[in-house]
């Protein structure tokens, strides 16, 4: 009985671990997103300059607002 109790506990913990969901936002570590090797968007063409990349993307995002050109 003394051996059975910890065994039951371990089995329950193992069973419940199957119910866990994966981390949706694992973060970029050592060139990988949770095991999937990928570069950061600004690494290659922007030579790691995140500010320049985000300025380029933000510029284009704002260009989608034609009210900035001709306000009705």
């Amino acid at each position, binding site marked *: 009985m003394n051996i059975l109790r910890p065994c039951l506990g371990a089995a329950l913990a193992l069973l419940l671990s199957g119910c866990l969901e994966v981390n*949706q936002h*694992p973060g970029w570590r050592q060139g990988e997103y*949770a095991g999937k090797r990928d570069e*950061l968007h600004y690494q290659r063409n922007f030579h790691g300059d995140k500010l320049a990349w985000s300025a380029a*993307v933000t510029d*284009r995002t*704002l260009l989608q*607002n034609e009210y900035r050109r001709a306000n009705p």
Partner: protein
Amino acid sequence: MAARMKFICDVERCIDCNGCVTACKNENETPWGVNRRRVVTINDGVPGERSISVACMHCTDAPCLAVCPVNCIYHTEDGIVLHSKDQCIGCGYCYYACPFGAPQFPETGLFNHRGKMDKCTFCAGGPEPDNSEAEFKKYGRNRIAEGKLPACAEQCATKALMGGEADIIANIYRQRVETRGYGPELWGWKIAYGRPKRGGEIKNRGEGRRNNQLLDDSQNEVRKFPT
């Protein structure tokens, strides 16, 4: 918090031209039968019909990612949902989990006979060196690494489909709705955009007709021809 890249489609502006679908296929050279983006029309042919361009919505809490048995789907730090075709086993669980029908398969068949899953990458490629040939062949163009936005959103003639950082495109959409006075009903304005007003006021709420709608206009009258 890092940027969250999202799409939003302004149904009041979408004219069902399918330009986004064509631009996507052209940019990513997706095979026959794989449509990463498509235009869905609600109440087709009935006055008041609406069209909406649908692809992967890059969910913050993505159901496809939650159900993938080999964990091949991941979020980039900008919230773009990508996947590894090397790890994909073609089980199709993501297809069943996705509420937008985003995951596509090159073949029809049962479990793992459908080939590798393919879906909208927000023109951000996948887990291969950026802008490499291998990346293009597997995932299509990587415009995000070039500092550009997805081809579908950038080419939209009426600017119905917008892509980019969620806060910015939500602000553009909010300004539109406040200016024209209607249009957010389909999305649940209060939940998504309910902020104190600056400028315009939303005149139309709920299901009623718009205050500037001409009831005897040909669009609202089935028996009348446009003149």
